[in-house]
């Protein structure tokens, strides 16, 4: 009997064209082939999450002794940890501003390319290339660019006769966070640009054509046709961007380490310091910070999704 004779048929009586229906594949085989990935996922994602929740309600004392402390870690965190609140404020500012700049900036760049600006193919490469670099490389590059003496930022200012605006960009609490934000946008705008560009190319051409026939200007076309049709993409990017910024760590760590004077301390860098730099092996408190932040991010995402969801079906 041929193998083909044993395969379940899908939509045809002709066994020579029989297709394999994955939905009817045997459970045992499915489990066996999913098992490696599931094991890795369980070991490196599910277990650490569960363990972090567990640690948040305990204190790990010397000699590996674990003591249940209930909500004590959360109490200290919320009522007596001023550094945590500074980190929350910094992270919130960073997340909100960077998300808005990410999405609006990415859309503008994509529109520029969609409108076939001069040198569009070159610009696409130039704008997307930083996305391919790691945060560590980006951080190092921008630390050099911001160096007071030989960095590009101050050199350009001096060249333009604006030496009075020279700054220690990463050394002043008032400029450090925004300087890191600029570096972040330099790296990340290209990603949103590509996503928006793909979405723009997927828009129905007849709708845009009809708008042009009706003498719709570019701004009106953007506001009344393109943006509403890109709503799903915008919402998805807003949510993804926001989640990413709320967990920002590597760029801050490389560029400022959370300084100066906690001006760039984020929740993630604070968790890392509490876990690895505070002369203690107690992971209870940093786990409590991580759990609380996880809950806060979930709440924000739920609120954002609810506020920005599409109420009326788009008709065209």
């Amino acid at each position: 009997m041929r193998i083909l004779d044993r395969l379940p048929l899908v939509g045809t009586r002709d066994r020579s064209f029989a297709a394999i229906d994955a939905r009817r594949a045997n459970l045992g085989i499915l489990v066996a082939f999913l098992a490696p990935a599931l094991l890795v996922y369980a070991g490196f994602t599910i277990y650490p999450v569960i363990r972090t929740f567990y640690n948040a309600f305990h204190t790990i004392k010397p000699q590996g002794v674990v003591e249940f402390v209930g909500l004590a870690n959360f109490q200290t965190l919320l009522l007596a940890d001023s550094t945590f609140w500074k980190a929350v404020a910094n992270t919130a500012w960073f997340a909100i501003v960077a998300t808005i700049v990410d999405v609006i900036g990415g859309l503008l760049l994509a529109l520029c390319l969609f409108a076939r600006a001069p040198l569009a193919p070159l610009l696409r490469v130039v704008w997307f290339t930083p996305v391919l670099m790691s945060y560590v490389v980006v951080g190092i590059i921008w630390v050099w660019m911001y160096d007071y003496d030989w960095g590009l930022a101050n050199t350009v200012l001096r060249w333009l006769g604006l030496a009075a605006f020279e700054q220690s960009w990463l050394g002043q609490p008032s400029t450090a966070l925004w300087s890191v934000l600029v570096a972040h946008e330099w790296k990340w705008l290209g990603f949103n640009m590509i996503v928006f560009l793909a979405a723009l190319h997927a828009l129905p051409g007849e709708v845009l054509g009809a708008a042009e026939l009706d003498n719709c200007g570019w701004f009106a076309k953007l506001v009344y046709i393109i943006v509403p049709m890109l709503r799903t993409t915008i919402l998805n990017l807003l949510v993804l961007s926001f989640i990413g910024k709320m967990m920002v760590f590597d760029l801050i760590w490389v560029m400022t380490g959370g300084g100066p004077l906690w001006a760039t301390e984020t929740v993630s860098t604070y968790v890392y310091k509490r876990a690895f730099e505070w002369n203690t092996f107690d992971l209870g408190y940093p786990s409590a910070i991580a759990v609380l932040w996880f809950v806060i991010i979930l709440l924000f995402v739920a609120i954002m999704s609810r506020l920005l969801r599409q109420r009326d079906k788009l008709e065209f």
Partner: protein
Amino acid sequence: MRASLSIRGAAAAGLVTLAVLFGAAPQANAEDVTIEVWSHEADEPAKVAFRELAVKSFEKSHPGTKVKITWYEKNPLGAALKTALPAGKGPDVFYVEPDQTEYITAGYIVPLDDLVNWNNIEPWARKVWTHNGKTYGIPQEAYTVELYYNKDMLKKLGIALPANAQFTQAQFLDLVKKARAAGMTPVSQGVGDRPYPGAYITVEALLRKLGPDDYQKLFTGKLSFADPRVVEVLKWVKELADAGAYPKNFMTLKLGESHYYFYSKPGALMLPMGSFYTGRAFVPEDKGGQPQTFPLGIMQFPAMDRGACNECKTSTIGASFAINAASKQKKLAGEFLDAMSTPEMGKMWIETVYLQTGIKADVKNFSGPYAAYFTELMERQKGEKYFIGQPRDMVTGECKDSFAQVLNSGFPGGLLSVDQTVQMMNKACFKG
């Protein structure tokens, strides 16, 4: 039929999965033993060469034993240990520093009293690692905190070093102002990647002003930062900072870069640094070392007005090694530590790393290209009274974080007033 085929298929896939996940166990000779060592200081060639020589000599004297050193930068080493040790894993031997007492309190390193030959170690160095009557680390590197300077630049300013190599407070402030006016950077220092160098001038001044007992009380939370003597010192340091003592890129300049800034580009008058300065400076110029003709000098930190101990100096233990409590080869690991700590190795450390050591080494005459440096370094130790330990060995938790952000970075960086500094340090450190 179909059921049995699917069972056999599932079993085959499961076997393949297990094989892929766990792999075949490597074939090993039953007699081969490997001691795993995790070490910092990969970027200091002299120390790398020293430890690798110890490895070769140990392997020769212990046939069938291999020593494998994995090199890390300091912060990643700490993070790797903090994840490996609680899991009962990690290397047999690892690099530690005396401020890392959490390994002792958590029980992750074993007492070395019976595992190591202490006759080769200086008693004062052993004391740094002794807690509750037991010694947990073997000290390798010892260093003093020095104030290096460029002799030619000082000459250019028309200022002569006093006979005792120690300026007064006022003279030092004047030196900083004159250097800045002459277009020199007075003090090369950067806090871009370390939580302590920015505080060198402040804490050395506090040591000389307060004397060792009150200095210890200050950093163990028993003396307030609002103490008038402390405030006086902070005001003086503020004057230095406001006079432009530090470079403009102080906040982002890394420790290694500050060395280069001092002796190469753009050059600076002074560099407060531990005497581990040599690890980066005394390497070939094309590898970032100081030029052969660099006019290096060493002066004392300035004497404080009405200072309780102007002859005081910070000395401490730096690089040390400990044995993992989970190691299955503690005795062998102890023998490796002994191999790194013989008098011959101590002599080699001094003559190649150009740094003091906790190992007993009788080196009366120095030879080699940097002999003059070491002679001057020893000269600067004469008559000095040592305070063993640095503030970061004494502070923990929130106080340690504040030390890094405030005394190390914000205050010398000109971001904080004296009152703000006192307030923030007291909040984090003073126990009342």
